[in-house]
Structure formats: structure tokens, C-alpha cells
């Protein structure tokens, strides 16, 4: 069909950048979807301001969407874009630093007006002054091309201009040989009730596509072959979508209704939105008056025998702390989703960070142990949700799930599982008295524990003969009566801790990836940094370095063999998007001299910089035998 030469690439990183109002997230989503259906592996990084509409044309108002797709397994959204689509001068200025020389810039020249240039401090247009010589720049009047293409439509100029993102999407789709059908179907559904807008968007999309074919500006077209993937059905999911699907699946498999109590907060609200649409699956969502009300509703539902879940971000977790403590004391199942963001306080609402680990573990009064787990990729949120429900219902405990903004909004392909392949979730309620009273009559002891799990019985209201009272005040072992007895308190504190520790008995051993089998340095991460760490590991190995990698999904308790694994290596490096919280826990727990690699920039780690740092670790441990280091300058701070 195309008359232009086709060049094959193994991977591409594209970043769409524009004003918050330019529709860049939608454009990125659509390009992702088209790319997924072609069978490429991919990873995405949406990056947008906290303001809904920051002042137009300014640097703080820039919203971007980065997509990395390849003919092989992709681990991160990519450190550096090969192509930057800049819808205005601010988008160019905000993103140029990430663009390696030789990369392609597609700029919307219509927006490079004197006024817009001045807004971001450009004296002259960088498109004309030679300052972009080292990049391949395509200046295109995307706005006026769109308006012209839509000349015959009965729309206002503003409405026509708004379709320019579809023009850009069409052009990029041509460049990278992406199909348009998916986006066309998407537009049809979106503009179901506005036929004129539908036709305009379709026309802009196709004009952009055809422009690539006819213009002399673009001499070649590219293609990226499908990545080898296991047979199966795939779709793309963001972390928040995957979390919601995991929860609904857990509800199905346990046969219990799920009640989500939630208060809107970035970047967790999409979990509330997604679950609100799944009422048919027995999901009840309650938008509470505040974060405390939200977790209270979830705990009340758990008391009633439902799966009580609350979703929030770091500031909300702080507010929920006392209620989580009540769930620890009452020993009821409760799942708390903390979709972390930059802190402290309001911090960076739309940016990612992993700095709530210590809050999750210790942010409550008293000895208040809870299970803490973390997904390692967007689609792992599905599995982690099932795991959270498993632990919460088996051990009658709160489980805090530490996702983050990067996982929440980032997407990747997901092999849709067969239901039969998923772990079962058998939840049993107490139905009869479990002891005999002094008078020889059957009695119910709400704190008589299961010998193996140490979990107490879950006896829900409505069960005759098991009437009992629970609460935050200390209870006597076994009987559950109020008790101020010193020995009893000591015993109960230890029992609650032992119960959490026993979860480790059900965890798989730490999986260490060490292809050469003789690495002396182990890089250990947790949560969302899995992708960048794995990519860095790949870089190190391709440069001849020997390195082992392991990743923790369970942060409390740790897998039983973790200490032994750590001690096998001369050096353990722990990269985290905080100031070394896991490193501190590992040092304290295992007396291992863990090296911390930290960055708190609101963005995932750069794989290249991490690789260089790891290389240095290998050099220090192995001496000259380690091979050459990569040459990039590190940007992340390194704490030693």
C-alpha cells in the first residue's frame, strides 16, 4: 500500500507532549492500544501536572505520555525518547533535555508564536535558530492543517483545532505502521451522540495518516515486529485497572461481596471509578465523607462478613492509621490500597514515589503489625489484589498494598488468565460454638485461634449463638473479654506479631535471577522499581557484568529465606524511590551491609543510570575483571 521504503526497528520510544488541554494522554492511550494489538511488548509512562488546566502554554502545564514498544520483552517506558511530539514550545522545552542527539522532533509550528515562545523564555524560535541542529526536526503546522482538513465541517474554529491531536496520532500511526481501526472504533463509541465531532476526528486522523504518505518530509516508514509472547489472549491494562479486576476476581472466587470505602485522591481514584462500574459483580462502592470514614466503612463491612477494602494514597493512609490499628486489634480482614505519590504532605500528587513503606509498616500506635505487599508491574496489580485478599481473609488481618503512581497509570500487555489457573480463595465463617463453658454449655470464644495460622474465627453478626463483642481495647486471649492483665497484654502483643510472621510460611522462596550463577553483587528491589532494575540488570549483563537480581513482593513478613539469600552475596544493592527505607529494614533485620541507591524525582529510575551505578558496585567488589562500565552520567543521587 505504502510507496515509501519500510525500515525495521527493534524498539522505539515515543513521547507525546503538549498542553494539558491538548489531549496527549488520550493520544498516547490510543497509540498504545494500536501498538498492543500489533503484538509488540510495551510499557507506558503518563506524566501530567496536578492542576487540571494549568495556565496554557506554560512549562507547568505540560502533559506527556511516553510509550516504549519493541519486538522483544520491554521492562520500562524507556529512559530516552527516540521521537518527541511537541505540540507547543513549552512541550519542547520541558522535554528536550531527555532527548538524545539524533532523535526526532515533530513540532506543531502553529503554536510557536512569539507569545508562546516568550511564555517559556525562548528569545527566538528554536525551530529556526539552529539550536536544534543535532536533532531531526520536522516542523508541521498541525493546527492549521487540521482546520484546513475540516474546512467543510460546521464546527467552530476551536472545535476544529481540538482535533489536532488526532492529526498527530494519524501521522505517527503512519510513521510506525500502526492500524487505525481500533482508534476509529474508539472514536465512534466516544462521539456516539455527536456525529459531526466524530466525523471531524476521523477526518483529522486519516488526514494525518495520509499526510505521512504524501509529504516529502518523511522519507521512510518504520515497523516493529511483534514480540514473542506466550500463546494466549492479551489486552493492555493500567495498574489501577488491574487492581480493580483483581479485587472483583477475588470477590468472585471467595463468594463474598466486596465493599470499597473510598475518598477521592490522586492517583488512587481510578480504582474507585473502576469498581463503581462493577456493581453487577456484587461490588458495593461507598464514597465516604473523608479518608477515615472510608476505612471505617470498609472495616464495618468486614465485620459484617464482606471483603472490606479501602483505596487511597499516602496522605490518606496517614489518616486511616487509627482505624487500621482497630482492625489489627479486632483481627478482622481489611485491604488497604496505598497508591503512593510524592510526599511529604500533599507533595507531588501526580508523580510517583515509594516512600510510604515505613508508614505502612510502622505508622500506627503500639505494636501494630500488618501484612504489607507490593506489586512489581502494572499488571501484577491483578495478582497482588488476589494475594491481598488471600492474606487478609486467611489471617484476619489488615493488608496494606503499596502500589504507586507509576504502576497506577502505566500500562503493559496482560495475558488474560483462565479462571481455573487462578488460586482458590476459600473463606470460612464460624458457625457454631468452639468451646465448652464452666457450666458445661457450649460457648463461643472469639479469640480462640487456629493452631496453624493463629487466625481467630470470623463470626459474623446474624449467626445465632456466637454473639460477641470486639473492639480496640485489649482483649483477653481466647475469651475476648476486656483485659488489663499485664501477662495477657504481653501474650496478645506477641500473638498478633506471630500471626503476621506465620504468613511467611505460605510465601514462595525468593527467586534470584543469576544467569551466570557466579554473581557477587545482588540487586534487590521492591514494588514498581522492578522494570527499571531488570532493564538495568540487562544492560549490565550485556556489557559483560555479572549481577544477580531479586525482587520483593512481600515486605511484611519477608520471605523466610531472604536473610540467607542476602548473605550469599558480597554486596547487596537496593534501589528505591525513597531515601533507603527497605535498605534500613534489611540492615536492621539481617545485619547485612546493604548499599542504598535512591532517587526521589517523582519519576521511575533511569535504567541506564542505575546500570552504571551497579557496574561501579561490581567493579568495587570484583576489581578489574568486571568489564567496562557504561558511559552515561548518573543523575540519581547515590547514598553510600
Amino acid at each position: 500500500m505504502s510507496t515509501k521504503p519500510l525500515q525495521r526497528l527493534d524498539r522505539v520510544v515515543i513521547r507525546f507532549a503538549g498542553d494539558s488541554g491538548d489531549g496527549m494522554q488520550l493520544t498516547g492511550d490510543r497509540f498504545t492500544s494500536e501498538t498492543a494489538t500489533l503484538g509488540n511488548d510495551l510499557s507506558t509512562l503518563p506524566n501530567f501536572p496536578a492542576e487540571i488546566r494549568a495556565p496554557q502554554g506554560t512549562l507547568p502545564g505540560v502533559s506527556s505520555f511516553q510509550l516504549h514498544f519493541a519486538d522483544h520483552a520491554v521492562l520500562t517506558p524507556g529512559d530516552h525518547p527516540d521521537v518527541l511530539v511537541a505540540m507547543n514550545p513549552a512541550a519542547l522545552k520541558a522535554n528536550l533535555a531527555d532527548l538524545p542527539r539524533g532523535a526526532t522532533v515533530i513540532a506543531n509550528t502553529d503554536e510557536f508564536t512569539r507569545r508562546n515562545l516568550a511564555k517559556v523564555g525562548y528569545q527566538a524560535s528554536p525551530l529556526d535558530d539552529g539550536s536544534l541542529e543535532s536533532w531531526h526536526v520536522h516542523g508541521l503546522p498541525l493546527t492549521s492543517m487540521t482546520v484546513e482538513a475540516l474546512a467543510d465541517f460546521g464546527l467552530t474554529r476551536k472545535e476544529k483545532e481540538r482535533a489536532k491531536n488526532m492529526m498527530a496520532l494519524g501521522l505517527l500511526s503512519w510513521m510506525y505502521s500502526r492500524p487505525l481501526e481500533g482508534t476509529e472504533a474508539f472514536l465512534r463509541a466516544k462521539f456516539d451522540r455527536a456525529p459531526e465531532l466524530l466525523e471531524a476526528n476521523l477526518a483529522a486522523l486519516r488526514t494525518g495518516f495520509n499526510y505521512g504518505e504524501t509529504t516529502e518530509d518523511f522519507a521512510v516508514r518504520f515497523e516493529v515486529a511483534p514480540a514473542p509472547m506466550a500463546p494466549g489472549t492479551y489486552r493492555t491494562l493500567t495498574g489501577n485497572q488491574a487492581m480493580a479486576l483483581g479485587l472483583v476476581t477475588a470477590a468472585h472466587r471467595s463468594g463474598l461481596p466486596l465493599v470499597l470505602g473510598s475518598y477521592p485522591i490522586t492517583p488512587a481514584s481510578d480504582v474507585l471509578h473502576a469498581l463503581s462500574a462493577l456493581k453487577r459483580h456484587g461490588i458495593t462502592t461507598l464514597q465516604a465523607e473523608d479518608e477515615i470514614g472510608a476505612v471505617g466503612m470498609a472495616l464495618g463491612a468486614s465485620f459484617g462478613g464482606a471483603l472490606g477494602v479501602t483505596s487511597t494514597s499516602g496522605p490518606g493512609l496517614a489518616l486511616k492509621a487509627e482505624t487500621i490499628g482497630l482492625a489489627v486489634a479486632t483481627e478482622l480482614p481489611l485491604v488497604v490500597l496505598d497508591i503512593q505519590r510524592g510526599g511529604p504532605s500533599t507533595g507531588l500528587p501526580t508523580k510517583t514515589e515509594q516512600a510510604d513503606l515505613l508508614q505502612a509498616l510502622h505508622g500506627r500506635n503500639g505494636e501494630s503489625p500488618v501484612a504489607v505487599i507490593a506489586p512489581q508491574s502494572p499488571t501484577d496489580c491483578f495478582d497482588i489484589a488476589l494475594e491481598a485478599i488471600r492474606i487478609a481473609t486467611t489471617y484476619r488481618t489488615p493488608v496494606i498494598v503499596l502500589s504507586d503512581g507509576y504502576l497506577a497509570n502505566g500500562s503493559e500487555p496482560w495475558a488474560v488468565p483462565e479462571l481455573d489457573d487462578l488460586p482458590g480463595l476459600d473463606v470460612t465463617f464460624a458457625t457454631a460454638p468452639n468451646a465448652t463453658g464452666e457450666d458445661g454449655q457450649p460457648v463461643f470464644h472469639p479469640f480462640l485461634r487456629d493452631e496453624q495460622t493463629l487466625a481467630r474465627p470470623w463470626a459474623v453478626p446474624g449467626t445465632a449463638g456466637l454473639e460477641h463483642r470486639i473492639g480496640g481495647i485489649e482483649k483477653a486471649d481466647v475469651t475476648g473479654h476486656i483485659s488489663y492483665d499485664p501477662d495477657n497484654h504481653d501474650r496478645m502483643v506477641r500473638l498478633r506479631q506471630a500471626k503476621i510472621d506465620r504468613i511467611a510460611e505460605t510465601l514462595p522462596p525468593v527467586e534470584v535471577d543469576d544467569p551466570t550463577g557466579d554473581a557477587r553483587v545482588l540487586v534487590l528491589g521492591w514494588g514498581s522499581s522492578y522494570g527499571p532494575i531488570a532493564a538495568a540488570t540487562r544492560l549490565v549483563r550485556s556489557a559483560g557484568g555479572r549481577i544477580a537480581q531479586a525482587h520483593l513482593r512481600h515486605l511484611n513478613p519477608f520471605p523466610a529465606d531472604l536473610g540467607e539469600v542476602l548473605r550469599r552475596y558480597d554486596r547487596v544493592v537496593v534501589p528505591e524511590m525513597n531515601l533507603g527505607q527497605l535498605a534500613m529494614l534489611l540492615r536492621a533485620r539481617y545485619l547485612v551491609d546493604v548499599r542504598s541507591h535512591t532517587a526521589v524525582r517523582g519519576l521511575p529510575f533511569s535504567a541506564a543510570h542505575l546500570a552504571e551505578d551497579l557496574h561501579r558496585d561490581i567493579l568495587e567488589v570484583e576489581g578489574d575483571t568486571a568489564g567496562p562500565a557504561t558511559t552515561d552520567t548518573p543523575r540519581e543521587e547515590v547514598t553510600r
Partner: protein
Amino acid sequence: MTATDLPLPTPQGTQGVPRVGEEDPRQTKKDFTSDQEVRWCPGCGDYAVLAAVQGFLPDLGLRRENIVFVSGIGCSSRFPYYLETYGMHSIHGRAPAIATGLATAREDLSVWVVTGDGDALSIGGNHLIHALRRNVNLTILLFNNKIYGLTKGQYSPTSDVGTVTKSTPVGSVDQPFNPVSLALGAEATFVARTLDSDRKHLTEVLRAAAEHRGTALVEIYQNCPIFNDGAFQLIKDRDSGRARLAHLVDGEPVRVGEDHVVVRSGGALTVVPETDAEPADVVVHDVAAEEPTQAFALSRLDDPSFAHVPMGIFRQVSRPTYDDQVRAQVDGARASAGGPATDADLADLLHGGDTWTVTG
């Protein structure tokens, strides 16, 4: 009767809660009394309320195991331990939120909240007002002793201005809440006030509250003999009380004592000798009035001197409840999809969106 078209019938408060069958043995006060030793101070008003509740619950005819008491923190919040029902003694101020989750998840439970003036109106104020506006099917007993008892005697959000306590040695300066006014302002559908020592009135009000579908708030004036003794003496005392109390009776003129009535005067209400009152100005109580305006005006008759104190049910209107509607949305989604989601439906959900297939 109500300001909205009802998308749902508004059944009685306890509808859907399993009842004691004809063949079952009659439940007695003993059945509702737990084996826990009651630990309030001697003479505390809480004892009288507990006795009234234990005595009246069997008459409700609900199965004991389907009744749940949720409390916060404070002296009165020990209440659930003394009742042989399900119970949760939760944390300070949060009982309405926990009870909302429970009542929404479980239609078959009669859920009660026991709280105090500090618990409900200070630390838990937000949860209380939102439970009231949502109209969750809960019965809230607000024990108002105008003091913090459990923490040993600091002033509370219902203490009168100038209250001298350990934390306010020269007198409190903040304006107190009037719990009835607050509840009416928070869109409550049932608001009442009663007195710990008036067993008959207490029981009548509690019964009406339990049978109300929606959030019923009952303010119970409760004496704390240790830290605020005699706070309600003027109205408890038979003689002085008689002249001050205005017993609210639906459809009847509002009388204060034996010879005064409440009349409209401008935008507010005042109390005048009956002989001076224009008959057209005399306020006739209407619990079911759509607008809470008159009920609110009646609640404003209170003042710290207890010159006249309306008691009884201020407002009792029917409005769809939060929990009924939330459940109806879930049920509706299921019904319109042809029933509860099956495994096949779950598989469809997981396979939703744009999918593609990789063949081996």
C-alpha cells in the same frame, strides 16, 4: 410526606431483619444481658439507659443475633459489652462510619450506634453529620452529659459557655452545639430528645427510633454524677421540671408546663402564658413536616437556664435510605444483566477492552 419522589418504598426500620418466630421461646431482658460486669460509676445515668434498652429490646421482636451495637470511645461507649448481641467498641468518633459500612453490607441487621457528646460532636462530628444526611438505617443514641467523663472532666462541645473544668479553669469560651439543631441542620429524618431517668419516655422514643427507617438520632440527657452532677436537675426535678418541659406531641399545640404555650413571633418562637396567646399563633407540632424549619425553631427554645426544654420527637419524616438505595443499585445492575455475575461473566469482564490473540 417527603420532599422527593421515592424511588423505593421506605419500609419500617427493622424490615428485613429476622424476627423471633412464634415457636421460639420468648426473648427476655436476661437474654440481652451479657455476663460482663457493668463498670460505670455508681449513680451514672448510663445504668438507667442500659436497663431501659435491655428491657425494651426483647419487645422489638428481632432475633438477638441480628442486632449489632457499635460504639466509639467514652463512658457510654462501653455499652455494647453489656448487651448479649453482636457489638463493636470502636475508636473515638468513628462509630457512625463503621456502622454505615456494616448496615450497607448487611440488610438483615438492626444496627445501633452508641455515642456521647464528645465522641459524636467533637472528634466524630464529620461522620455524624454525613450519616444523618445520607439517612443510613441506623439508630444513634447520643448520651449527652455535657462533659468529658472518661478523660476526667474536661468541658465538651455541649458544655455551656463559662463551664469551669480542669482544662478551662476560668471558664470555657466556645459556643456549644445544640445536638438537636445540629441534626436537623444535617438533614436528619428522625430527631428526638429524651431523659435518662424517664424510663417510660425513653422507651417510647427508642421504640419509635428503632422503627424509623433511616438514621434516627436520639439525644439522651444523661447525668454524670462524678464530673457534671445535676446538669439536668432543673428538668429532672418533678416540680421545677414540670414548668419547664415541653412534651412534643404530634398534632397537638406545644405546651410548656401547664399554662404556657409556644407561639410564633416574627421568624422565631417564644413561650407565652396560654391566656395571652392568639390561638392562630400557637404552634401545633408536626413531626412529619417536609421542612425542618419549625422543628428547628423548637430546638432553639432551649437555653442554658432550661427555662423551657422541648422533649420528644422533633422530626420524623420518610426519605429513601442510603443503604437501601446502594443495595438497590447493586441489585438493579444484577437484574438488568440477567442475574448475579457468573464465572463466565467474570471471564468476559477480564477479556473486555481491546484484546488480541497470540497463537503458538
